[in-house]
Each structure stands twice: as C-alpha cells, then as structure tokens.
C-alpha cells in the first residue's frame, strides 16, 4: 500500500466515518538535530513522522459522546483503522460534558499544498561553523556542550462540518553551554529561530568566552534576598508557568492563584503592577503559531468540540488586571466569560520597559545577574509559588558593571508576585525559555526584569 497525501487521508477518513460527526487532524513532522559535548558531536538524526488523530462524535438524545484515537498513518488502510477505532470508542463513551456545536465551513487558502519538510541540510552553514567553534574552543581551554534542533510540522484539520484548515509551523533553537576545562565555571546561551539563517555559532562562542571570562573573580554569597536581574530567557521560564496554570476551570473551582475562593475567578481584579500586559496572538510575526484550535482530547483547558475555533489576540493580563483565563466554550459558560482558548505563544510587555538588559545592569548599584533558571516546579498553587535553581552563570553587578561570578542558588518565588514588585524592565524581545522552550513552549517574547528582593532560598554547590 503506497503512502497517501495528508489531504487524501483526511477525505478518506471523513468519508469512511459512521459517526454523526468527526474531526481528522494530521500532523506531518520532519526534524533534524545535532548534539555535541566536550567539543565533539555526540548524537544526531533526521526523523520523519505522520500521526493522525480522529475524533468521533456520536449523538444520543440530547447528549453527545466523543472519543479520539491516534496513530501513525501514511496509508488509507491505516487511517481507516484509526477511524474505525475512534467510531467504536465514541459509541461506547459516556456523554461529553463539554459538548458544543462543532465549528463549521472554513477552508485555508493553502489547503491543497503538500507538507513542508526540513532535513539535515538546514545546517549547511551552521555545521561547518560549529566544527570550527569546537576547534577554537579546544584551543582556548573551553568545552562546548549543546544542541540544535529544527522541526517543521504541517497540520491539517478537516471535519465533517466543512473545516479544511492547514498550518505550517517551523520551530528551531540553538543552545550551548561552555565550561572551562577544570569544570569550575559555566556559561549558557540559547536562542529560538525559525530557519537558522540568524544563528552564527562563532559569534555565540565569542559571547560564551566573554561570559566565562567574567568568572575570573569568584564571589561566594549566602542565601538571602537579592536585587536580581532576570534576562528575557529567565522571564520566559516564569511566564510560561504563569500561563500554564491559568486554566479557567481550576481557577473557578478554587484551585489556583487566579481563584476567588471558594468559587469564582479573579478576572477583573488587579493582580500585578500597573502597566503589565501578558498576551497571546497567533499573528505576531516572530512568534507566529497555529491560528485555530487543534485538540486531540478534552481536558479542563481544551475541548475537542472547539477544534477549528479561530484564535485571536487574547490579553490575559491588561495593565495589571486579570482579563482572561484559558477556557473552552464549555468552561466559558461556567465562568460567564468569553471563550479564550489556549494559544501556542506568549508575550509579556511592560509599559515602562525600554532599552536592553545591559541598561538594567548599568543602572544597578549592587545585585545579581542570573542568566538562566532550571528545574522549575510548582510548590503551592494557591500563590503559584515556584521553586527552581539558577544555572550556568550568576554574576555580581557592582556600580553598573559585572565584577565576578557568584555561586548558584535555589530560589522560591511566585511569578505573579514578581510582576507586582519588579522595579525596572527592558523592552520586550524574542526569548527562549531554557526550561520549557526546547520541548514544550518555544514561542515567547519577554523583557528583562529587575526584582529588588528575589528570594534565593539556599546555596547550590552545582558549578
């Protein structure tokens, strides 16, 4: 059996379904990566895959049951098998509590286009430069560890109600850690990219060398509260968690920092400093993402009935006020708010934000510059208290200059609280969350922030 096109898979599945309605989602992904450590390549690969998800809907009286089945699908036989499984599961399923009318009758202008691939040649310029950087680093007593990844996913969403939607999503990033050969000093850089045309490994190696040189003076500091500058990458780490825990249902039921307990949300309440804006917008060019809802299975924050729902600019926090939470049409009826589905990008803007992180450093009398955060986990949902570590570069700032490297810390902080007490912000720039950017949430734009009393809870010996 030969491979079928994604459009053929969608049409064959829709034609074969015996359910009352169905949605077919095809994700066609190719990717290529290079990984290195100790100035040598370690692993690499070029992968291709195509998965199909069929969501079947079966009506019974006033209720509708839904079930979804996914699988690798390249042939009409394979998609037919997935369709049969989804139909059978829906017939046996309990009524769906999130039932809503399916979205109807929209077609993307590029629906008929084939999937867009990538391959190892995306590194035609990067790979030789990386090889040169390995040699240069080895000669200068540096060890490089890092990873580049490029993936292109083409999504096709078709439905029995007339949806034929297509979206191409390129996603890439470069990340590199440098250490001295004694392994006592470490620095990190990471950046998101769509096509690697803007990635220069030799320039990045230069910057890593500059940061390692900052560690010529080592300063050991105890735990405590410090005036701390967080770069856009670290702010992205914290904002992703702020967003992920913004589910409307959990808030409505009293289980999050956005709750008005025992029942209700804090929508309409000022939760951060004035001038803070947190938003998502699929049309923003640097962080463009899928402009329609794609949902394989329902949970508290996503509903299969919302598949194909157009996504538009959504302000989660506007001028410090909580204005929206992540919600489906189902939870929107619960909270009596508009449906504001999950969107795959996030932007933080501060009205007073200007300049760069260098400007924040120059304006700091004594404080810490933290280059990246790591192992961030939720400790308490009531306050959105997070814990995590600093990693690969904490620097002492004195009189506007970086004067040395400081030990690492474990920190405990709530990002919602931080947005209420920061004192300075840079302009917003494209950023890359070290914790979540590579695998889960790559499209962020954030400013650097200066926090006057960041809680460094204990010292970490890690170097």
């Amino acid at each position, binding site marked *: 059996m030969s*491979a079928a096109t994604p459009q053929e898979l969608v049409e064959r599945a829709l034609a074969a379904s015996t359910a009352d309605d169905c949605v077919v989602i095809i994700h066609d992904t190719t990717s290529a990566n*290079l*990984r*290195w*450590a*100790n100035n*040598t390549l*370690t692993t*690499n*690969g*070029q*992968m*291709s*895959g*195509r*998965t199909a*998800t069929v969501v079947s809907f079966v009506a019974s009286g006033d209720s509708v049951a839904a*079930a*979804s089945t*996914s*699988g690798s699908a390249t042939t009409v036989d394979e998609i037919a098998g997935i369709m049969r*499984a989804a139909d059978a*599961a829906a017939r046996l*399923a309990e009524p*769906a*509590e999130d039932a809503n009318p399916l979205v109807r009758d929209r077609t993307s202008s590029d629906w008929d286009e084939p999937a867009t691939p990538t391959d190892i040649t995306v590194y035609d310029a990067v790979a030789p430069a*990386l090889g040169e950087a390995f040699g240069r680093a080895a000669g200068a007593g540096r060890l490089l*560890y890092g*990873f580049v990844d490029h993936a292109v996913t083409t999504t096709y969403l078709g439905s029995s109600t007339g949806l034929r939607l297509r979206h191409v999503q390129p996603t890439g990033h470069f*990340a590199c850690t440098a*250490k001295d050969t004694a*392994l006592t000093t470490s620095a990190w850089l990471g950046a998101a990219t769509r096509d690697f045309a803007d990635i220069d490994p030799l320039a990045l190696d230069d910057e890593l060398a500059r940061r390692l040189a900052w560690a010529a003076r080592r300063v050991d500091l105890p735990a405590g509260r410090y005036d701390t500058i967080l770069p856009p990458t670290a702010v992205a780490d914290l904002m992703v968690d702020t967003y992920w825990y913004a589910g409307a249902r959990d808030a409505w*039921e*009293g*289980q999050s920092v956005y709750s008005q*307990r*025992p029942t209700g949300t804090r929508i309409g309440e000022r939760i951060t400093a004035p001038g803070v804006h947190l938003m998502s917008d699929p049309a923003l060019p640097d962080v463009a993402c899928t402009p329609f809802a794609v949902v394989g*299975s*329902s*949970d508290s924050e996503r509903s*299969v009935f919302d598949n194909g729902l157009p996504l538009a600019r959504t302000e989660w926090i506007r001028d410090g006020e909580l204005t929206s939470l992540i919600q489906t049409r189902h939870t929107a009826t619960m909270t009596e708010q508009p449906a504001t589905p999950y969107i795959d990008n996030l932007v933080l803007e501060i009205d007073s934000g200007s300049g760069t992180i260098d400007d924040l450093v120059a304006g700091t009398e004594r404080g810490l510059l933290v280059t990246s955060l*790591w*192992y961030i986990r939720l*400790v*308490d949902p*009531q306050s959105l*208290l997070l*814990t995590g*570590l600093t*990693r*690969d570069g904490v620097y002492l700032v004195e009189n506007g200059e970086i004067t040395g490297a400081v030990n*690492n810390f*474990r920190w*405990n902080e709530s990002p919602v*609280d931080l947005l209420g007490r920061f004192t300075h912000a840079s302009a917003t720039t494209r950023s890359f969350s070290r914790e979540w950017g590579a695998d889960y949430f790559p499209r962020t734009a954030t400013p650097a922030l200066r926090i006057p009393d960041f809680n460094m*809870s*204990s010292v*970490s*010996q*890690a170097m």
Partner: protein
Amino acid sequence: MPGIDATFLALPHRRLGDLALARAADLGASHADFRFERIRSQRILVRDGALQGAADADLVGFAVRVVHGGAWGFASGVVLTEDEARRVAETAVSVAKVAAAMTTTPVELAPEPVYDDVTWVSSYDLDPFEVSTADKTAVLADWTIRLCRGSAVDHATASLYAVQENKYYADLAGTRTTQQRVRMQPAFEAMGGTSEVFDSMASIAPPVGRGWEYVVGDPSAGAWDWEIELDEVPDLLAEKLKSPSIEAGRYDLVIHPSNLWLTIHESIGHATELDRALGYEANYAGTSFATPDQIGTLRYGSPIMNVTGDRTVEHGLATIGYDDDGVATQQWDIVRDGMLVGFQLDRPMAALMPELSADEGAGRSNGCAYADSPGHIPIQRMANVSLQPAADGPSTEELISQVERGLYVVGDKSWSIDMQRFNFQFTGQRFFRIVDGRLAGQARDVAYQATTTDFWGAMEAVGGPDTWLLGGAFNCGKAQPGQVAAVSHGCPTALFRDVRILNTTEEAGQ
C-alpha cells in the same frame, strides 16, 4: 501471562529490518541497528464523576542507527515499505557523514554476546487494552463520586494512563530480540478548601509494570488497595485543611517509600548515570557531582545505605529483557555500605570506561540503553534504582518511635534538584507531626530541602522488607531532543536526622 501481541508480529518488522541492515552494510557502516516499535497508549480523564476525555494512540515506526566513519548517524520513518526501509538506512549513513566532520572522538561500542532471535514479555495478567474503555471509565468515575462524598472534598479527579510497548531490535552482529511490556498509572486526587485555604490529597499508588489486575485484583496478590485509600483520603484532606502551618526549622524525618522513591530518583538515579557524569547532558539535564574517579572513595551516605541498579525486577517500569543496544539486562550495585561503587552504562559509555563494568571490569554495558520511540536515538537511561531494606529492619511504627520531634512524610508532590544533583527541595502529600515517638496530626505548607550527600549521610535507619515498596514515574525527562522514560524505585521507610524544613507560605513571602 500473555505472549507477544499477534498484531505486532504481523507487521513487516523482520523484512524491513533485514533490508535496512543490508543497505547500511552495503554503504560501509561498521555498526548498524534497526528498531521497529509499536507503542499503544490510552489516557482517560474523569472529573467529578464525568468523563473529561479519552484518547487512544497506536504509534508505529522504525529507526536505523549506524556508525559510519567513526560517527553516529540516525534516521527514522513511519512508512512501512521496503523502499522506505532502504531510504531511511541511506539517510542514517548520510547523516553520519555530516557528523563525521564534527566528531573528534570515534564512536566505540562495548562488546556484547549475540542473542539469536530471543523473546521477552513483562509480567502481567490482564492486558489493559483488552478491557473496555467504558469499564475503565466506570471505575474512575466511581472513585471520584466516592471521594466527593467527603465533607471537605469540593472536587475530585481520576485518571488512567496505560501503555503497551512492543520492540523488535536487530543489528549487524546478528542479535534479534522481540519484546513486549505493559505499564499502568491509575491515579486520583481530591480537592477542597475554604475562603482562606485550598489544598488537595492524592492517592499514593505507584505506577507499575502490571496489567488491569492492579486495579481490580486482590491486594494480597499485588493489586493496590484502592478501597482503603478511597475511604481514607477524604478524611485526610479534611484534617490537612485544619492542620497548623509548619514552623520552619530542622526536624527528624521518617519518610515513607511513596515519597522517598522520588528523592532516590533525583539524587541517586540521575547522579549515577555515566553519560551525565561525563558531560553528555551538560547542556540540558546537567552533570553529576558523582564522577567515576570517585568510585570506591565517595561516601554517598551512611553505612546502612545500599543501592542497586536493576533492569530485571518483576513489575519494574524500567524492566526489560534486552536494552536498545541489544544488551541482556542485569542487576548490580551502585552504592554499597554508603560508598559509590557503580554507574549506569550503555554500550558507548561502557566502551569509554571499561573499568566501570559490573562484570569485574570486563567492559560490558549493564543494559541501560533506551529510546522512548522509534523517532528518537537510544541513550543511556535509568535502570530501576532502589534502596535496599535491612534484612531484620524495623517497622515504620518502630522508626517513628525513635523520633522525639519530627515529621512522617507520605506521598510525593513537588520536586526539584540542581544540575549536579546537590541541592534538592521536595514536598509531599501528607506531613504528619511526630511528637515523642507518636504521630500528632498533620502539618501544612511543608517542604524539605537538603544536599544529597548530607541527606543520605543523615540516614540513621532503614526499615525492614515489610516496609519496602516499588514506587516510580512514567515521565522521567532527559536528552535532546527530549525523551521520557518510565522507571521504578524501590525503597523501605527510612529515618533521617536533622533535615531542613521550610514553610512554603513564608517562602512565598505571604
């Protein structure tokens, strides 16, 4: 016990493998291996008695990994045709050629005997995929309805995640393995609160390498005792909501296996992966304070600390017959009498440091290669890393009786550790205060924080075999591109002296 799924055996794994390996050999690969996998999974979510979502997945694909010109090359595909098998092999070789220019240390693999067409199936009775989704959903819905009857419970969730993993591995040396394993993660959580306080209480049932019998079977035969826990959790939540906030300070801790498994995972399991210790995870998951030059000299913990790596223990989540390098799996010592004595290895790691081999320096891998899908390259992943009980050790009650002022910690919740595995912070489901050797009600807002070797050095006693439980996780993350692995950790209840306790409300500045 079921055999290997006939629908997997009907797939063209052998034919595609033979073609791919032959093509890689023709192109000059010095090593080539072929993995053909099918991963069936199911997730069911229930909230307050209503089904939230049910999703099944059945992913099939294959991968070719080669060593060519001293460099790795890897490629994968999902089109199950002979042409595609050859094309993927060719792509793997072409990727290796790109990589060769950046590879300064040629790839070597530790030696391993050839296993000529062997099979292995994990230990379970009832295939969860043979039980109807409706029946499984009904059990979960019943759990949440029962929980919601508790006076302090406002809402309850329940979930099931089940996986059946089939792998066929073949390499140019002649090894052919066909394997199947099943794992399950049933869970529930009750939530409740007032205008002032919100909290939750979850089941402490571990995920396991068992079938549906884990849910509906006899607890004396290995099933979890869901009935007892469903009765207890609403009252435990009610008590927790009324309990006092902890006074930060230093306390003795008696830690139940339902919490201690995660501390073992983070501070021992990951710390003794040789790829981390050598820098292969330095840009992502991190390195390790435990380096191979410290074998036999690093005091990891107190003399009663004995830790094994084991990919053979029955019902373990990392248990399998042969790993993704084609190595027969094993059990070995990692910490003996408190001293570091071993690491976790795959074939490339074992070849780099043959003196670390469990087979008396024979340079053999101890079987820790794993890839979570055909789309990912195998890397060194964690064995079931477990703390051994004392043969005639005390009961949990006897351990509690040895504490004047402390906490009894049950169930896992939040976890975090630094990139060299020194500094960690954990919370839990239940923190019972201990006063003069007796439990004295729960405390809230508790986290414990320590440095790995200080913590394990402060372990004064481990419980007996009756206190031992195999805990674990479905979702351990590692590598770039990111992969997840399921892994178990067994341990007894254990007593730790003088550990730092934080008040999380104070940490939040509130």
